[in-house]
């Protein structure tokens, strides 16, 4: 219940924060909403020597409209703030669809979208969402800023492209093609509420055939992934029930499907197919 002792810093600028990270390689951890990190620390499964509390960094707050019709979400934006933002929910409805079911009110009030992405829990929902939205992630360190596409960010269970001295500062969601529909479907692990399988779909038709199909899948493998075989199979079809089912059958292709006490690999793979199918159906239903 009680974390091991640590040193605590509360920088007031991003520059100061990344400087502290650079000076404490391997021993400092970023603390945002704490919804994942403090849990690990209380069980002493994580024992960082130093926490860099970014909660005071005004630069990282807020949701901005991007000129191209996209959206920028600061690293300190909580789930609740996304749900309460008319801008976010209207421009990118997929966000709210996924977030409404993440954790519970208390977790959504504290937990940040960026924290979830940086943490990269293989059962978390946001990775599938940012994959399907083709978001890019803005990362800062002492040596400057770089922008990473979500598709190359998630490397494994709790492993990302983020280096130890880097701070995720912003999530940029580009404008989505006109006429696409979006949906999120998932199956919860009843105890934790995390996803056994989660599927995010951004799908659109032009002139009777599917022209956009971006499917993010989480919970199935040790990292969230784009179900590219599904996308390929769906593009060009009429998006009818048969086509969707045939495409969704590829949902767990090319990944090592995980297994634990809550779901074995056979079931997980099947649930990936079911939820990818349902997400595509719902997305098409919502498409303009």
């Amino acid at each position, binding site marked *: 219940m009680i974390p091991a*002792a640590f040193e605590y810093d509360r920088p007031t600028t991003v520059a100061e924060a990344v400087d502290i990270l650079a000076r404490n390689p391997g021993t400092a951890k970023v603390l945002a909403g704490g919804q994942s990190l403090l849990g690990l620390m209380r069980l002493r499964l994580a024992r960082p020597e130093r926490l860099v509390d970014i909660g005071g960094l005004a630069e990282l707050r807020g949701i901005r409209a991007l000129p191209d019709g996209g959206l920028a979400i600061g690293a300190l934006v909580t789930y609740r703030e996304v749900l309460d933002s008319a801008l976010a929910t209207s421009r990118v409805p997929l966000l709210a669809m996924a977030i409404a079911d993440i954790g519970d009110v208390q977790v959504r*009030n504290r937990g940040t979208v960026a924290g979830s992405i940086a943490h990269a829990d293989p059962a978390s929902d946001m990775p599938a969402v940012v994959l399907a939205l083709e978001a890019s992630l803005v990362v800062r360190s002492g040596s400057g800023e770089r922008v990473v596409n979500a598709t190359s960010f998630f490397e494994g269970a709790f492993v990302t492209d983020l280096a130890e001295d880097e701070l995720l500062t912003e999530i940029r969601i580009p404008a989505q093609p006109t006429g696409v529909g979006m949906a999120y479907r998932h199956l919860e692990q009843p105890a934790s509420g995390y996803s056994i399988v989660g599927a995010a779909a951004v799908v659109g038709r032009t002139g009777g055939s599917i022209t956009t199909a971006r499917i993010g899948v989480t919970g199935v493998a040790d990292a969230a992934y784009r179900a590219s075989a599904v996308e390929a199979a769906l593009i060009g079809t009429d998006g009818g029930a048969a086509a969707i089912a045939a495409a969704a059958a590829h949902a767990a292709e090319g990944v090592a499907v995980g297994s634990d006490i809550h779901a074995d690999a056979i079931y997980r793979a099947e649930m990936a197919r079911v939820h990818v199918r349902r997400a595509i159906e719902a997305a098409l239903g919502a498409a303009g």
Partner: protein
Amino acid sequence: MTEQVRLTVNGVPRDVEVEPRRLLVQTLREDLGLTGTHVGCDTSQCGACTVHLDGRAVKSCTVLAIQADGHVVTTIEGMAPDGGLHAIQAAFWAKHGLQCGFCTPGMIMSAADLLESNPDPTDDEIRHAIEGNICRCTGYHNIVAAIREAASTLRAGTDVPAAANA
């Protein structure tokens, strides 16, 4: 090793000296004697520790006291007007929304967050809103009834009589 932290708790500024690792729930309970906020788990699941931080329900076991420095905390002890009961408290009492009472403070704080943003929730919305609060005694039936009743009391703007009796 310790740091000075200033919290505004139930409207009163409180200065406490804490190790950085001290959880907000420990500070409330042990440093400030506000034992109405409970601890029921070690994995952020149960919600017994729910308080409001800047007006929003949070699990105080998953917030460091030092993270709350400079912020406003409301606990169950700060819910009721002097000598009276908050409408949610009164409704939990009237509807038998509690048995052992251990989950109750957290439930009430979560209900308050809900009714703040959704004054007329459906039963499903109520059940969804208290998903982060586990009650092992009531089967939730009467908790849902209590929150439903509190919502209607609050909508009607009716004052709850001080120390309403049986």
